[in-house]
């Protein structure tokens, strides 16, 4: 604090100055501290207050509600923990303290801290980013399994995969999964997996064990090998509660090896059902297509149906009938005309027939017995018997005398008992 200007500071000013100094120092920001818990208080506000101590010093700690809400274990006095947080100053009391953001039980010790530090480092590098997760094949042809060929994990995986989807080939890559050289061996196996081209997806894992047993899966070289793998990798390390770095880098995390086997292949019964649905869909489409085509066909074939044809025939028939009847009418008409003419002609004929002349008072004389018409006196002689036909009967006469006259003046006549005879004969001759 500069001393050149004599000035009396308020406590608040000094305290805020100290606070500013402490909170701006990166060495006091986001640090990991280990110690034993004492004076633990769970305040009604939800905040935790406690003191961390070792054999030399004490550090007041505050863990606010928003930081402690997701805590998986209960903090108790005497418990050894590892806490992460930043140093701050509580101005009302002028006390510095650690504002805790994360705590873990001390039991796991240094390994756990290493885990957390590596996790943070790799997270910052983006190795866990979703964008790098490779999609898994839905129906893998071939599944690699990187694990111990003698462990429990491989048996579980093979059993489940055989039950669910036996058509997927399993390619086991025998690998050491615990011990000093395990991480190198895992890296080598991931390399092998990628060298061998015919693997669609791989499971990397082992059964449960202590944190030391699972440790190879927390090694940085393993994490990088998983990240670099072209073949998608499902991690399956230990039990559900075990999280390793491998789980974060892997394209998919399975809680256990068995769970990995369930995730890596579908259940064949589901697939068979799906195929049945697809087949049913195909049939449905075929039927709908056929129905549609049939409709088109019906549209055309409608014109070819017997009923329609019959209708046409009836129509033509009617037309023919119409034509025929009009023809008949015409013929009748013609006939009528002809008939009229015929009548007229008949009358005319009548008028000129000999019988008609009788009506007008003429007579016809026939020589008996031959009944030859006597149209000239040359055809008769005295004493001949003749028949004279009148309009209403006939007379039998004898020729008394034949008198020849000149020309057809009408002066020449047969002398008959009947005078009429003569005149009739004259008439006929005139015509």
């Amino acid at each position, binding site marked *: 604090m500069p001393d050149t200007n004599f000035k009396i500071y308020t406590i608040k000013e000094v305290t805020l100055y100290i606070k500013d100094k402490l909170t701006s120092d990166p060495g006091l920001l986001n640090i990991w501290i280990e110690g034993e818990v004492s004076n633990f208080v769970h305040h009604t506000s939800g905040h935790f207050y406690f003191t961390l101590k070792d054999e030399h010093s004490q550090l007041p700690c505050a863990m606010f509600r928003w930081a402690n809400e997701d805590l998986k274990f209960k903090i108790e006095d005497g418990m050894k923990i590892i806490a992460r947080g930043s140093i701050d100053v509580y101005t009302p009391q002028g006390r510095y303290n650690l504002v805790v953001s994360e705590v873990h039980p001390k039991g796991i010790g240094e390994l756990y801290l290493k885990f957390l530090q590596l996790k943070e480092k790799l997270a910052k590098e983006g190795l866990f980013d979703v964008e790098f997760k490779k999609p898994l094949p*839905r129906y893998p042809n071939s599944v690699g399994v990187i694990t111990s060929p*003698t462990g429990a994990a491989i048996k579980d995986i093979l059993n489940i995969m055989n039950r669910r989807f036996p058509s997927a080939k399993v390619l086991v890559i025998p690998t050491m999964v615990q011990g000093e050289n395990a991480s190198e061996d895992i890296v080598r196996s991931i390399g092998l997996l990628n060298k061998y081209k015919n693997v669609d997806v791989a499971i990397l894992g082992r059964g449960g064990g202590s944190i030391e047993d699972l440790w190879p899966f927390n090694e940085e070289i393993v994490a990088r090998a998983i990240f670099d793998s072209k073949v998608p990798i499902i991690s399956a390390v230990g039990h559900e509660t075990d999280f390793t770095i491998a789980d974060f880098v892997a394209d998919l995390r399975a809680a256990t090896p068995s769970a990995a086997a369930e995730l890596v292949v579908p259940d064949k019964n589901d697939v068979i059902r799906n195929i049945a649905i697809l087949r049913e869909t195909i049939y449905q489409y075929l039927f709908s297509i056929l129905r549609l085509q049939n409709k088109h066909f019906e549209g055309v074939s409608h014109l070819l149906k017997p009923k329609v044809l019959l209708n046409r025939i009836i129509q033509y028939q009617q037309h023919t009938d119409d034509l025929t009847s009009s023809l008949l009418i015409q013929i009748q008409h013609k006939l009528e005309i002809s008939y009229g003419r015929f009548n007229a002609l008949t009358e005319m004929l009548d008028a000129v027939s000999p019988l008609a002349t009788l009506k007008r008072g003429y007579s016809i004389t026939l020589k008996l017995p031959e009944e030859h018409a006597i149209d000239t006196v040359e055809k008769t002689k005295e004493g001949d018997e003749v028949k004279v036909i009148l309009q209403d009967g006939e007379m039998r006469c004898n020729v008394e005398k034949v008198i020849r006259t000149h020309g057809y003046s009408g002066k020449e006549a047969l002398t008959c008992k009947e005078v009429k005879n003569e005149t009739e004969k004259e008439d006929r001759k005139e015509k």
Partner: protein
Amino acid sequence: MEEEISFEEALKRLEEIVDNLEKGQLSLDESLKKFEEGIKLSKLCNKKLVETQQKVEKLMEKNGKLLTEPLTTE
């Protein structure tokens, strides 16, 4: 249709066929062909699922060469 086609390929093809039919832009002839192929594929897929025995091999590297052999667990 080849027997060699993998299950995934067969199923993918089957789904494509259904998709094609769904779009309904095929002629009757094409539809019938797709239909026939689809039914064959569905049978093939079923066969692969039902009849295939699980094959388990182990992959190793010996003298820089990759080789596989049947796996014997105990």
